[in-house]
Protein backbone atom coordinates (compact mmCIF):
# COMPACT_ATOMS: atom_id res chain seq x y z
CA UNK A 1 0.00 0.00 0.00
CA UNK A 2 2.83 2.34 0.63
CA UNK A 3 3.78 1.99 -3.02
CA UNK A 4 0.66 2.07 -5.14
CA UNK A 5 1.02 1.30 -8.79
CA UNK A 6 0.65 4.33 -11.09
CA UNK A 7 -2.37 2.72 -12.70
CA UNK A 8 -3.83 6.01 -13.79
CA UNK A 9 -0.76 7.41 -15.37
CA UNK A 10 -2.08 7.09 -18.86
CA UNK A 11 -5.76 7.48 -18.14
CA UNK A 12 -7.63 10.50 -19.53
CA UNK A 13 -8.29 13.56 -17.39
CA UNK A 14 -11.46 13.14 -15.39
CA UNK A 15 -11.56 16.36 -13.42
CA UNK A 16 -9.73 19.54 -14.18
CA UNK A 17 -9.79 22.58 -11.95
CA UNK A 18 -8.26 25.77 -13.26
CA UNK A 19 -7.82 28.97 -11.33
CA UNK A 20 -10.70 28.22 -8.95
CA UNK A 21 -11.57 31.12 -6.72
CA UNK A 22 -14.30 30.89 -4.08
CA UNK A 23 -15.76 33.93 -2.33
CA UNK A 24 -18.02 34.12 0.70
CA UNK A 25 -20.15 37.06 1.66
CA UNK A 26 -18.79 38.16 5.04
CA UNK A 27 -19.55 40.80 7.63
CA UNK A 28 -16.98 43.15 6.13
CA UNK A 29 -17.21 42.47 2.44
CA UNK A 30 -16.35 39.30 0.62
CA UNK A 31 -13.97 36.75 2.02
CA UNK A 32 -11.74 34.81 -0.32
CA UNK A 33 -11.54 31.16 0.73
CA UNK A 34 -9.95 29.64 -2.34
CA UNK A 35 -7.48 31.71 -4.29
CA UNK A 36 -6.68 30.20 -7.64
CA UNK A 37 -6.50 26.43 -7.26
CA UNK A 38 -5.35 24.27 -10.15
CA UNK A 39 -5.84 20.54 -9.89
CA UNK A 40 -6.25 17.58 -12.23
CA UNK A 41 -7.56 14.09 -11.54
CA UNK A 42 -7.31 11.25 -14.01
CA UNK A 43 -9.78 8.37 -14.06
CA UNK A 44 -9.10 5.77 -11.37
CA UNK A 45 -6.51 7.95 -9.67
CA UNK A 46 -6.37 8.80 -5.96
CA UNK A 47 -5.26 12.35 -5.38
CA UNK A 48 -4.71 13.72 -1.95
CA UNK A 49 -5.51 17.34 -1.17
CA UNK A 50 -3.55 18.22 1.94
CA UNK A 51 -3.46 21.26 4.17
CA UNK A 52 -4.17 22.66 7.56
CA UNK A 53 -7.75 23.41 8.54
CA UNK A 54 -8.71 26.68 6.92
CA UNK A 55 -6.39 26.14 4.01
CA UNK A 56 -9.36 25.93 1.67
CA UNK A 57 -9.07 22.24 0.84
CA UNK A 58 -12.56 21.35 1.96
CA UNK A 59 -14.06 24.40 0.29
CA UNK A 60 -12.29 23.43 -2.91
CA UNK A 61 -13.67 19.88 -2.73
CA UNK A 62 -17.20 20.97 -1.89
CA UNK A 63 -17.17 23.66 -4.55
CA UNK A 64 -16.91 20.93 -7.13
CA UNK A 65 -20.46 19.89 -6.16
CA UNK A 66 -21.46 23.46 -5.31
CA UNK A 67 -22.21 22.41 -1.75
CA UNK A 68 -20.84 25.48 -0.01
CA UNK A 69 -23.84 27.57 1.11
CA UNK A 70 -23.62 31.15 -0.01
CA UNK A 71 -20.32 30.73 -1.83
CA UNK A 72 -19.58 32.12 -5.29
CA UNK A 73 -17.10 30.25 -7.44
CA UNK A 74 -15.20 31.45 -10.48
CA UNK A 75 -12.61 29.85 -12.69
CA UNK A 76 -13.12 26.50 -14.29
CA UNK A 77 -14.18 23.10 -13.02
CA UNK A 78 -14.69 20.44 -15.67
CA UNK A 79 -15.80 16.86 -15.22
CA UNK A 80 -15.17 14.67 -18.23
CA UNK A 81 -14.77 17.83 -20.26
CA UNK A 82 -18.09 19.29 -19.07
CA UNK A 83 -18.01 22.65 -17.29
CA UNK A 84 -19.59 22.45 -13.83
CA UNK A 85 -19.53 26.11 -12.83
CA UNK A 86 -22.08 27.16 -15.40
CA UNK A 87 -24.29 24.15 -14.81
CA UNK A 88 -27.99 24.65 -14.00
CA UNK A 89 -29.25 23.64 -10.57
CA UNK A 90 -31.10 20.57 -11.90
CA UNK A 91 -28.11 19.39 -13.93
CA UNK A 92 -25.89 19.82 -10.88
CA UNK A 93 -28.31 17.76 -8.80
CA UNK A 94 -28.29 15.04 -11.44
CA UNK A 95 -24.53 14.89 -11.11
CA UNK A 96 -24.44 14.77 -7.33
CA UNK A 97 -24.53 11.23 -6.03
CA UNK A 98 -24.48 9.83 -9.51
CA UNK A 99 -21.23 10.78 -11.30
CA UNK A 100 -19.70 12.24 -8.17
CA UNK A 101 -20.11 10.66 -4.77
CA UNK A 102 -19.13 12.26 -1.52
CA UNK A 103 -18.01 10.97 1.87
CA UNK A 104 -17.73 13.28 4.86
CA UNK A 105 -15.57 13.46 7.90
CA UNK A 106 -18.01 12.61 10.68
CA UNK A 107 -20.06 9.50 9.94
CA UNK A 108 -22.13 10.08 13.11
CA UNK A 109 -23.54 13.39 12.01
CA UNK A 110 -23.46 12.84 8.27
CA UNK A 111 -26.14 10.19 8.27
CA UNK A 112 -29.71 11.23 9.02
CA UNK A 113 -30.51 9.87 12.48
CA UNK A 114 -34.19 9.56 11.67
CA UNK A 115 -33.93 6.97 8.90
CA UNK A 116 -32.48 3.50 8.61
CA UNK A 117 -29.29 2.95 6.63
CA UNK A 118 -31.31 1.00 4.06
CA UNK A 119 -33.80 3.78 3.69
CA UNK A 120 -31.04 6.32 3.06
CA UNK A 121 -29.27 4.06 0.58
CA UNK A 122 -32.43 3.33 -1.35
CA UNK A 123 -33.14 7.05 -1.53
CA UNK A 124 -29.68 7.59 -3.00
CA UNK A 125 -30.30 4.97 -5.66
CA UNK A 126 -33.75 6.06 -6.60
CA UNK A 127 -32.76 9.70 -6.96
CA UNK A 128 -30.76 8.69 -10.02
CA UNK A 129 -31.88 5.26 -11.17
CA UNK A 130 -35.38 4.31 -12.23
CA UNK A 131 -35.34 1.24 -10.02
CA UNK A 132 -38.17 -0.25 -7.97
CA UNK A 133 -37.76 -0.57 -4.22
CA UNK A 134 -36.87 -4.23 -4.52
CA UNK A 135 -34.11 -3.67 -7.05
CA UNK A 136 -32.83 -0.65 -5.16
CA UNK A 137 -32.73 -2.72 -2.01
CA UNK A 138 -30.76 -5.43 -3.74
CA UNK A 139 -28.23 -2.90 -5.02
CA UNK A 140 -27.97 -1.35 -1.57
CA UNK A 141 -27.32 -4.72 0.03
CA UNK A 142 -24.66 -5.47 -2.60
CA UNK A 143 -22.90 -2.20 -1.87
CA UNK A 144 -23.08 -2.74 1.87
CA UNK A 145 -21.47 -6.15 1.39
CA UNK A 146 -18.89 -4.60 -0.91
CA UNK A 147 -17.74 -2.10 1.68
CA UNK A 148 -17.06 -4.98 4.03
CA UNK A 149 -20.19 -4.95 6.10
CA UNK A 150 -20.56 -8.68 6.52
CA UNK A 151 -23.99 -8.48 8.11
CA UNK A 152 -25.40 -6.28 5.37
CA UNK A 153 -29.03 -7.25 6.02
CA UNK A 154 -28.83 -6.19 9.64
CA UNK A 155 -27.02 -2.97 8.83
CA UNK A 156 -29.67 -2.26 6.22
CA UNK A 157 -32.42 -2.19 8.84
CA UNK A 158 -30.34 -0.38 11.42
CA UNK A 159 -30.43 3.26 12.38
CA UNK A 160 -27.11 5.15 12.35
CA UNK A 161 -26.98 5.32 16.15
CA UNK A 162 -27.05 1.55 16.32
CA UNK A 163 -23.76 1.19 14.42
CA UNK A 164 -20.13 1.78 15.37
CA UNK A 165 -18.20 4.67 13.86
CA UNK A 166 -16.35 2.45 11.41
CA UNK A 167 -19.53 0.71 10.31
CA UNK A 168 -21.22 4.07 9.79
CA UNK A 169 -18.35 5.28 7.63
CA UNK A 170 -18.52 2.11 5.59
CA UNK A 171 -22.25 2.66 5.18
CA UNK A 172 -21.56 6.24 4.19
CA UNK A 173 -19.06 5.03 1.57
CA UNK A 174 -21.56 2.44 0.33
CA UNK A 175 -24.07 5.24 -0.12
CA UNK A 176 -21.58 7.45 -1.95
CA UNK A 177 -20.60 4.53 -4.18
CA UNK A 178 -24.13 3.34 -4.78
CA UNK A 179 -24.35 4.66 -8.34
CA UNK A 180 -20.71 3.73 -9.07
CA UNK A 181 -19.60 7.32 -9.57
CA UNK A 182 -16.65 8.33 -11.72
CA UNK A 183 -15.35 10.48 -8.89
CA UNK A 184 -15.51 10.04 -5.15
CA UNK A 185 -14.74 13.02 -2.99
CA UNK A 186 -13.75 11.93 0.48
CA UNK A 187 -13.44 14.80 2.94
CA UNK A 188 -11.32 13.68 5.88
CA UNK A 189 -12.99 10.26 5.80
CA UNK A 190 -10.84 8.76 8.55
CA UNK A 191 -10.23 11.69 10.87
CA UNK A 192 -13.03 10.81 13.27
CA UNK A 193 -12.07 7.15 13.44
CA UNK A 194 -9.73 5.05 15.52
CA UNK A 195 -6.31 4.08 14.15
CA UNK A 196 -7.21 0.51 13.18
CA UNK A 197 -10.44 1.57 11.55
CA UNK A 198 -8.60 4.36 9.69
CA UNK A 199 -6.36 1.83 8.00
CA UNK A 200 -9.30 -0.40 7.13
CA UNK A 201 -11.24 2.49 5.57
CA UNK A 202 -8.24 3.60 3.54
CA UNK A 203 -7.76 0.05 2.37
CA UNK A 204 -11.42 -0.08 1.41
CA UNK A 205 -11.17 3.12 -0.64
CA UNK A 206 -8.16 1.77 -2.45
CA UNK A 207 -9.98 -1.47 -3.21
CA UNK A 208 -13.08 0.32 -4.45
CA UNK A 209 -11.18 2.42 -6.94
CA UNK A 210 -9.55 -0.72 -8.27
CA UNK A 211 -12.89 -2.54 -8.56
CA UNK A 212 -14.90 0.35 -9.98
CA UNK A 213 -12.22 2.51 -11.54
CA UNK A 214 -13.49 5.40 -9.50
CA UNK A 215 -11.15 8.34 -9.07
CA UNK A 216 -10.89 9.57 -5.51
CA UNK A 217 -10.14 13.08 -4.31
CA UNK A 218 -9.01 12.55 -0.74
CA UNK A 219 -9.11 15.63 1.46
CA UNK A 220 -6.91 15.32 4.53
CA UNK A 221 -4.66 17.21 6.86
CA UNK A 222 -2.63 14.07 7.50
CA UNK A 223 0.27 13.27 5.18
CA UNK A 224 0.40 9.75 6.60
CA UNK A 225 -2.96 9.06 4.97
CA UNK A 226 -1.65 10.43 1.70
CA UNK A 227 1.41 8.28 1.89
CA UNK A 228 -0.77 5.25 2.43
CA UNK A 229 -2.91 5.31 -0.71
CA UNK A 230 -2.54 8.39 -2.86
CA UNK A 231 -1.05 8.40 -6.33
CA UNK A 232 -0.49 12.11 -6.27
CA UNK A 233 -0.72 14.88 -3.73
CA UNK A 234 -1.54 18.56 -3.87
CA UNK A 235 -0.58 20.61 -0.83
CA UNK A 236 -2.77 23.62 -0.16
CA UNK A 237 -1.86 26.64 1.87
CA UNK A 238 -4.03 29.68 2.43
CA UNK A 239 -6.34 29.04 -0.47
CA UNK A 240 -3.96 27.90 -3.13
CA UNK A 241 -1.97 24.84 -4.12
CA UNK A 242 1.67 25.38 -3.18
CA UNK A 243 3.10 22.06 -4.28
CA UNK A 244 1.91 19.11 -6.29
CA UNK A 245 3.73 15.83 -6.94
CA UNK A 246 3.41 12.03 -7.03
CA UNK A 247 3.03 11.12 -3.40
CA UNK A 248 6.30 9.15 -3.02
CA UNK A 249 8.20 11.98 -4.64
CA UNK A 250 6.58 14.56 -2.46
CA UNK A 251 7.21 12.77 0.79
CA UNK A 252 10.75 11.78 -0.07
CA UNK A 253 11.71 15.05 -1.72
CA UNK A 254 9.53 17.96 -0.66
CA UNK A 255 10.49 21.21 -2.36
CA UNK A 256 8.21 23.70 -0.63
CA UNK A 257 9.18 24.67 2.93
CA UNK A 258 5.57 24.22 3.98
CA UNK A 259 5.43 20.68 2.61
CA UNK A 260 8.56 19.81 4.50
CA UNK A 261 7.05 21.15 7.70
CA UNK A 262 4.00 18.97 7.13
CA UNK A 263 6.16 15.91 6.59
CA UNK A 264 8.05 16.58 9.76
CA UNK A 265 4.75 16.58 11.57
CA UNK A 266 4.02 12.95 10.58
CA UNK A 267 4.24 10.82 13.71
CA UNK A 268 7.43 8.80 13.79
CA UNK A 269 7.67 5.08 14.42
CA UNK A 270 8.43 5.71 18.05
CA UNK A 271 5.20 7.62 18.43
CA UNK A 272 7.05 10.88 18.89
CA UNK A 273 4.60 13.17 17.18
CA UNK A 274 5.78 16.58 16.14
CA UNK A 275 2.59 18.35 15.29
CA UNK A 276 1.84 20.94 12.67
CA UNK A 277 1.85 23.65 15.29
CA UNK A 278 5.58 23.36 15.34
CA UNK A 279 5.41 25.68 12.36
CA UNK A 280 5.45 29.10 13.95
CA UNK A 281 2.44 31.33 13.35
CA UNK A 282 -0.93 30.51 11.87
CA UNK A 283 -2.14 30.28 8.30
CA UNK A 284 -3.88 33.48 7.20
CA UNK A 285 -5.79 34.18 4.07
CA UNK A 286 -4.07 36.97 2.23
CA UNK A 287 -6.41 39.62 0.98
CA UNK A 288 -3.67 40.88 -1.33
CA UNK A 289 -2.01 38.46 -3.66
CA UNK A 290 1.16 40.51 -3.64
CA UNK A 291 3.15 38.17 -1.45
CA UNK A 292 3.73 34.52 -0.75
CA UNK A 293 1.03 33.61 1.78
CA UNK A 294 3.44 31.36 3.68
CA UNK A 295 6.16 34.00 3.96
CA UNK A 296 5.26 35.15 7.50
CA UNK A 297 5.80 31.63 8.83
CA UNK A 298 8.59 30.60 6.53
CA UNK A 299 12.15 30.29 7.86
CA UNK A 300 13.66 30.93 4.42
CA UNK A 301 11.44 33.81 3.35
CA UNK A 302 13.13 36.75 1.66
CA UNK A 303 12.12 40.27 0.66
CA UNK A 304 11.02 38.85 -2.62
CA UNK A 305 8.63 36.45 -0.93
CA UNK A 306 7.01 39.39 0.82
CA UNK A 307 6.88 41.51 -2.32
CA UNK A 308 5.57 39.14 -4.95
CA UNK A 309 3.47 36.01 -5.05
CA UNK A 310 5.30 33.13 -6.63
CA UNK A 311 3.56 31.52 -9.65
CA UNK A 312 2.77 27.80 -9.86
CA UNK A 313 5.55 26.38 -11.96
CA UNK A 314 4.98 22.96 -13.45
CA UNK A 315 7.81 20.73 -14.42
CA UNK A 316 7.09 17.13 -15.37
CA UNK A 317 4.82 15.52 -12.82
CA UNK A 318 5.52 18.19 -10.24
CA UNK A 319 4.27 21.69 -9.62
CA UNK A 320 5.60 24.24 -7.15
CA UNK A 321 4.71 27.73 -5.93
CA UNK A 322 7.88 29.01 -4.25
CA UNK A 323 10.65 31.54 -4.86
CA UNK A 324 13.14 29.55 -2.83
CA UNK A 325 12.51 25.83 -3.39
CA UNK A 326 14.37 23.43 -1.19
CA UNK A 327 17.32 21.61 -2.71
CA UNK A 328 16.45 18.12 -3.84
CA UNK A 329 18.85 15.72 -2.30
CA UNK A 330 19.87 12.98 -4.71
Amino acid at each position, binding site marked *: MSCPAPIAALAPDLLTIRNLRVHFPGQTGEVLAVDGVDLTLRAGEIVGLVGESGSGKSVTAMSI*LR*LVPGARSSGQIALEGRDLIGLGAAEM*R*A*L*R*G*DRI*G*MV*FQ*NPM*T*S*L*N*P*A*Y*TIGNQLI*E*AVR*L*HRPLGRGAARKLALTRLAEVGLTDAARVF*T*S*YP*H*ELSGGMRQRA*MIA*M*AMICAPALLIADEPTTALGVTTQAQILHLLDRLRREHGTAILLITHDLAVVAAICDRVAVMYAGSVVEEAPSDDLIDRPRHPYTRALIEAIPSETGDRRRLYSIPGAALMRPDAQACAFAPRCATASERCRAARPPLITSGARGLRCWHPLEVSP
Partner: protein
Amino acid sequence: MIGNVIGRLLQVLPTLFGVLVLVFAMTHVLPGDPARLIAGPEATDAEVAGLRADLGLDQPVGAQFITYLSNLSRGEMGRSLHSNRPVVDELAARLPRTLILTGLALAIMISLGLAAGIISAIKPDSLRDHLLTGLSLTGISVPLFWLGLMLVLVFSYHLRWLPTGGTSSLRGYILPAVTLGLGAAAMLARLMRSSLLDIIHQDYIRTARAKGAREAVVIGRHALRNALIPAVTLIGLEAGILLGGAVIVETIFSINGIGRYLVQSIQYRDYPATQGAVLVIAVIFITVNLLTDLSYGLLDPRQRRGAA
Protein backbone atom coordinates in the same frame (compact mmCIF):
# COMPACT_ATOMS: atom_id res chain seq x y z
CA MET B 1 -44.24 -0.48 23.22
CA ILE B 2 -47.68 -1.57 24.54
CA GLY B 3 -46.11 -2.75 27.80
CA ASN B 4 -44.40 0.58 28.01
CA VAL B 5 -47.72 2.39 27.60
CA ILE B 6 -49.38 0.27 30.29
CA GLY B 7 -46.48 0.92 32.63
CA ARG B 8 -46.77 4.63 32.05
CA LEU B 9 -50.51 4.48 32.70
CA LEU B 10 -49.95 2.74 36.02
CA GLN B 11 -47.46 5.41 37.04
CA VAL B 12 -50.23 7.92 36.46
CA LEU B 13 -52.43 6.64 39.29
CA PRO B 14 -50.36 8.01 42.20
CA THR B 15 -50.09 11.31 40.34
CA LEU B 16 -53.86 11.48 40.06
CA PHE B 17 -54.25 10.62 43.73
CA GLY B 18 -51.84 13.42 44.61
CA VAL B 19 -53.81 15.81 42.42
CA LEU B 20 -57.02 14.80 44.21
CA VAL B 21 -55.61 15.25 47.70
CA LEU B 22 -54.16 18.61 46.73
CA VAL B 23 -57.32 19.90 45.11
CA PHE B 24 -59.46 18.62 47.95
CA ALA B 25 -57.26 20.31 50.51
CA MET B 26 -57.01 23.54 48.54
CA THR B 27 -60.71 23.91 47.86
CA HIS B 28 -61.55 23.27 51.50
CA VAL B 29 -58.91 25.67 52.77
CA LEU B 30 -60.32 28.47 50.62
CA PRO B 31 -62.58 30.76 52.59
CA GLY B 32 -66.19 30.66 51.45
CA ASP B 33 -69.11 28.41 52.25
CA PRO B 34 -70.65 26.64 49.26
CA ALA B 35 -74.03 26.54 50.93
CA ARG B 36 -74.08 30.31 51.36
CA LEU B 37 -72.74 30.90 47.88
CA ILE B 38 -75.37 28.65 46.34
CA ALA B 39 -78.20 29.96 48.49
CA GLY B 40 -77.41 33.46 47.28
CA PRO B 41 -76.66 36.76 48.96
CA GLU B 42 -80.23 37.31 50.12
CA ALA B 43 -80.56 33.95 51.83
CA THR B 44 -81.18 33.83 55.54
CA ASP B 45 -79.17 31.74 57.97
CA ALA B 46 -81.94 29.15 58.22
CA GLU B 47 -81.95 28.66 54.45
CA VAL B 48 -78.18 28.28 54.36
CA ALA B 49 -78.13 25.83 57.25
CA GLY B 50 -80.75 23.64 55.58
CA LEU B 51 -78.82 23.57 52.37
CA ARG B 52 -75.58 22.82 54.17
CA ALA B 53 -77.10 19.75 55.76
CA ASP B 54 -78.67 18.67 52.49
CA LEU B 55 -75.32 18.85 50.72
CA GLY B 56 -73.58 16.85 53.43
CA LEU B 57 -71.31 19.77 54.18
CA ASP B 58 -71.96 19.43 57.89
CA GLN B 59 -69.79 16.30 57.83
CA PRO B 60 -66.10 16.55 58.85
CA VAL B 61 -63.77 17.27 55.94
CA GLY B 62 -61.90 13.98 56.35
CA ALA B 63 -65.14 12.03 56.19
CA GLN B 64 -66.15 13.98 53.08
CA PHE B 65 -62.88 13.04 51.39
CA ILE B 66 -63.22 9.37 52.24
CA THR B 67 -66.79 9.38 50.95
CA TYR B 68 -65.55 11.06 47.79
CA LEU B 69 -62.79 8.52 47.24
CA SER B 70 -65.03 5.54 47.81
CA ASN B 71 -67.54 6.97 45.34
CA LEU B 72 -64.75 7.60 42.87
CA SER B 73 -63.56 4.03 43.11
CA ARG B 74 -67.02 3.03 41.91
CA GLY B 75 -66.72 5.45 39.04
CA GLU B 76 -68.96 8.06 40.65
CA MET B 77 -67.88 11.63 41.09
CA GLY B 78 -70.79 12.66 43.24
CA ARG B 79 -73.30 15.37 42.54
CA SER B 80 -72.54 18.98 41.91
CA LEU B 81 -73.41 21.03 44.97
CA HIS B 82 -74.53 23.82 42.71
CA SER B 83 -76.75 22.03 40.21
CA ASN B 84 -77.43 18.82 42.12
CA ARG B 85 -76.66 16.90 38.91
CA PRO B 86 -74.14 14.06 38.67
CA VAL B 87 -70.70 15.55 38.08
CA VAL B 88 -69.98 12.75 35.61
CA ASP B 89 -72.91 13.86 33.45
CA GLU B 90 -71.96 17.50 33.67
CA LEU B 91 -68.38 16.75 32.65
CA ALA B 92 -69.47 14.40 29.88
CA ALA B 93 -71.63 17.16 28.43
CA ARG B 94 -68.83 19.72 28.54
CA LEU B 95 -65.78 17.68 27.66
CA PRO B 96 -66.53 17.35 23.93
CA ARG B 97 -66.81 21.12 23.61
CA THR B 98 -63.44 21.70 25.19
CA LEU B 99 -61.91 18.90 23.15
CA ILE B 100 -63.30 20.31 19.91
CA LEU B 101 -62.11 23.79 20.86
CA THR B 102 -58.60 22.78 21.87
CA GLY B 103 -58.41 20.20 19.07
CA LEU B 104 -59.22 22.83 16.47
CA ALA B 105 -56.84 25.27 18.13
CA LEU B 106 -54.14 22.61 18.06
CA ALA B 107 -54.83 21.98 14.38
CA ILE B 108 -54.56 25.71 13.68
CA MET B 109 -51.40 25.88 15.74
CA ILE B 110 -49.80 22.96 13.93
CA SER B 111 -50.79 23.89 10.40
CA LEU B 112 -50.07 27.62 10.63
CA GLY B 113 -47.08 27.22 12.92
CA LEU B 114 -45.34 24.61 10.81
CA ALA B 115 -46.05 26.41 7.55
CA ALA B 116 -44.87 29.79 8.83
CA GLY B 117 -41.79 28.27 10.48
CA ILE B 118 -40.78 26.42 7.33
CA ILE B 119 -41.36 29.40 5.05
CA SER B 120 -39.25 31.57 7.37
CA ALA B 121 -36.45 29.04 7.68
CA ILE B 122 -36.12 28.34 3.96
CA LYS B 123 -35.16 31.94 3.27
CA PRO B 124 -33.90 33.42 6.52
CA ASP B 125 -33.66 37.21 6.69
CA SER B 126 -35.79 37.58 3.60
CA LEU B 127 -38.72 39.97 3.50
CA ARG B 128 -41.25 37.19 4.08
CA ASP B 129 -39.17 35.88 6.98
CA HIS B 130 -39.17 39.29 8.65
CA LEU B 131 -42.88 39.63 7.97
CA LEU B 132 -43.68 36.26 9.51
CA THR B 133 -41.33 36.88 12.44
CA GLY B 134 -43.07 40.18 13.09
CA LEU B 135 -46.46 38.53 12.87
CA SER B 136 -45.52 35.74 15.23
CA LEU B 137 -44.09 38.22 17.75
CA THR B 138 -47.42 40.01 17.62
CA GLY B 139 -49.24 36.71 17.91
CA ILE B 140 -47.32 35.78 21.03
CA SER B 141 -47.75 39.10 22.74
CA VAL B 142 -51.42 39.81 22.02
CA PRO B 143 -53.61 38.95 25.02
CA LEU B 144 -56.20 36.24 24.33
CA PHE B 145 -59.01 38.37 25.63
CA TRP B 146 -58.28 41.27 23.32
CA LEU B 147 -57.69 39.05 20.30
CA GLY B 148 -60.98 37.24 20.89
CA LEU B 149 -62.99 40.42 21.09
CA MET B 150 -61.26 41.88 18.03
CA LEU B 151 -62.08 38.77 16.00
CA VAL B 152 -65.70 38.98 17.13
CA LEU B 153 -65.82 42.66 16.20
CA VAL B 154 -64.48 42.00 12.72
CA PHE B 155 -66.04 38.67 11.80
CA SER B 156 -69.28 38.75 13.78
CA TYR B 157 -70.15 42.39 14.13
CA HIS B 158 -68.89 43.95 10.92
CA LEU B 159 -68.73 41.12 8.42
CA ARG B 160 -71.45 39.00 10.07
CA TRP B 161 -69.81 35.79 8.88
CA LEU B 162 -69.59 33.97 12.14
CA PRO B 163 -71.60 33.90 15.35
CA THR B 164 -70.27 35.62 18.46
CA GLY B 165 -70.09 32.29 20.19
CA GLY B 166 -72.13 29.36 21.31
CA THR B 167 -71.87 25.71 20.53
CA SER B 168 -74.96 25.09 18.46
CA SER B 169 -72.87 24.48 15.33
CA LEU B 170 -69.23 23.89 14.48
CA ARG B 171 -69.13 27.43 13.09
CA GLY B 172 -69.34 28.74 16.60
CA TYR B 173 -65.97 27.13 17.30
CA ILE B 174 -64.05 28.84 14.51
CA LEU B 175 -63.37 32.20 16.14
CA PRO B 176 -62.60 30.75 19.56
CA ALA B 177 -60.28 28.16 18.05
CA VAL B 178 -58.47 30.82 16.04
CA THR B 179 -58.21 33.01 19.14
CA LEU B 180 -56.76 30.14 21.09
CA GLY B 181 -54.58 28.72 18.34
CA LEU B 182 -52.93 31.84 16.92
CA GLY B 183 -50.60 32.54 19.82
CA ALA B 184 -49.59 28.91 19.97
CA ALA B 185 -49.05 28.88 16.22
CA ALA B 186 -46.76 31.88 16.59
CA MET B 187 -44.74 30.09 19.25
CA LEU B 188 -44.48 27.01 17.07
CA ALA B 189 -43.49 29.10 14.03
CA ARG B 190 -40.63 30.64 15.95
CA LEU B 191 -39.50 27.30 17.27
CA MET B 192 -39.75 25.65 13.85
CA ARG B 193 -37.78 28.48 12.30
CA SER B 194 -34.89 28.25 14.72
CA SER B 195 -35.01 24.48 14.85
CA LEU B 196 -34.99 24.18 11.06
CA LEU B 197 -32.24 26.79 10.70
CA ASP B 198 -30.20 24.78 13.15
CA ILE B 199 -30.83 21.53 11.35
CA ILE B 200 -30.22 22.95 7.89
CA HIS B 201 -26.60 23.36 8.99
CA GLN B 202 -26.33 19.76 10.09
CA ASP B 203 -23.97 17.43 8.24
CA TYR B 204 -26.70 15.05 7.15
CA ILE B 205 -28.47 17.84 5.30
CA ARG B 206 -25.25 18.37 3.34
CA THR B 207 -25.20 14.62 2.76
CA ALA B 208 -28.73 14.74 1.41
CA ARG B 209 -27.74 17.52 -0.97
CA ALA B 210 -24.62 15.61 -1.97
CA LYS B 211 -26.85 12.68 -2.88
CA GLY B 212 -28.57 14.91 -5.42
CA ALA B 213 -31.85 15.41 -3.57
CA ARG B 214 -34.03 18.33 -4.53
CA GLU B 215 -34.28 21.15 -1.96
CA ALA B 216 -37.93 20.24 -1.28
CA VAL B 217 -36.85 16.71 -0.40
CA VAL B 218 -33.92 17.98 1.64
CA ILE B 219 -36.23 20.16 3.73
CA GLY B 220 -39.34 18.03 3.69
CA ARG B 221 -37.77 14.64 4.22
CA HIS B 222 -34.47 15.23 5.97
CA ALA B 223 -34.76 18.49 7.88
CA LEU B 224 -38.42 18.56 8.88
CA ARG B 225 -38.53 15.16 10.47
CA ASN B 226 -35.74 16.07 12.84
CA ALA B 227 -36.98 19.60 13.40
CA LEU B 228 -40.29 18.13 14.50
CA ILE B 229 -38.76 16.61 17.62
CA PRO B 230 -38.52 19.89 19.57
CA ALA B 231 -41.78 20.94 17.93
CA VAL B 232 -43.52 17.92 19.42
CA THR B 233 -42.29 18.92 22.86
CA LEU B 234 -43.76 22.37 22.34
CA ILE B 235 -47.00 21.00 20.93
CA GLY B 236 -47.33 18.76 23.98
CA LEU B 237 -46.68 21.66 26.33
CA GLU B 238 -48.95 23.95 24.34
CA ALA B 239 -51.78 21.43 24.51
CA GLY B 240 -51.72 22.00 28.26
CA ILE B 241 -51.45 25.75 27.86
CA LEU B 242 -54.34 25.69 25.39
CA LEU B 243 -56.46 23.92 27.99
CA GLY B 244 -55.65 26.79 30.34
CA GLY B 245 -56.42 29.37 27.67
CA ALA B 246 -59.69 27.58 26.99
CA VAL B 247 -60.94 28.97 30.30
CA ILE B 248 -60.72 32.52 28.97
CA VAL B 249 -61.80 31.72 25.45
CA GLU B 250 -64.76 29.68 26.63
CA THR B 251 -65.93 32.68 28.61
CA ILE B 252 -65.54 35.18 25.77
CA PHE B 253 -67.30 32.92 23.29
CA SER B 254 -69.91 31.48 25.63
CA ILE B 255 -68.72 27.92 25.21
CA ASN B 256 -69.65 25.97 28.23
CA GLY B 257 -66.69 23.65 28.39
CA ILE B 258 -64.55 22.15 31.10
CA GLY B 259 -62.54 25.33 31.60
CA ARG B 260 -65.50 27.51 32.39
CA TYR B 261 -67.02 24.74 34.45
CA LEU B 262 -63.89 24.65 36.56
CA VAL B 263 -63.89 28.39 37.11
CA GLN B 264 -67.56 28.41 38.03
CA SER B 265 -67.20 25.44 40.31
CA ILE B 266 -64.35 27.16 42.15
CA GLN B 267 -66.38 30.35 42.44
CA TYR B 268 -69.22 28.38 44.00
CA ARG B 269 -66.87 26.27 46.08
CA ASP B 270 -68.60 23.36 44.38
CA TYR B 271 -66.13 20.79 45.69
CA PRO B 272 -67.24 17.69 43.76
CA ALA B 273 -67.42 19.65 40.51
CA THR B 274 -63.99 21.21 41.04
CA GLN B 275 -62.52 17.82 41.86
CA GLY B 276 -64.10 16.24 38.82
CA ALA B 277 -62.99 18.98 36.46
CA VAL B 278 -59.43 18.94 37.78
CA LEU B 279 -59.35 15.18 37.50
CA VAL B 280 -60.46 15.29 33.88
CA ILE B 281 -57.98 18.05 33.03
CA ALA B 282 -55.22 16.10 34.78
CA VAL B 283 -56.09 12.99 32.79
CA ILE B 284 -56.05 14.96 29.53
CA PHE B 285 -52.75 16.54 30.49
CA ILE B 286 -51.20 13.19 31.32
CA THR B 287 -52.57 11.64 28.14
CA VAL B 288 -51.11 14.44 26.05
CA ASN B 289 -47.78 13.95 27.78
CA LEU B 290 -47.92 10.25 27.09
CA LEU B 291 -48.76 10.84 23.44
CA THR B 292 -45.92 13.36 23.23
CA ASP B 293 -43.46 10.86 24.63
CA LEU B 294 -44.70 8.14 22.33
CA SER B 295 -44.39 10.37 19.30
CA TYR B 296 -40.75 11.05 20.15
CA GLY B 297 -40.25 7.35 19.56
CA LEU B 298 -41.96 7.59 16.19
CA LEU B 299 -39.95 10.61 15.10
CA ASP B 300 -36.61 9.84 16.62
CA PRO B 301 -35.41 6.24 16.53
CA ARG B 302 -32.76 7.04 19.13
CA GLN B 303 -35.57 7.46 21.69
CA ARG B 304 -37.07 4.09 20.93
CA ARG B 305 -36.54 1.55 23.64
CA GLY B 306 -36.27 -2.12 22.82
CA ALA B 307 -35.85 -1.43 19.10
CA ALA B 308 -33.81 -3.97 17.15
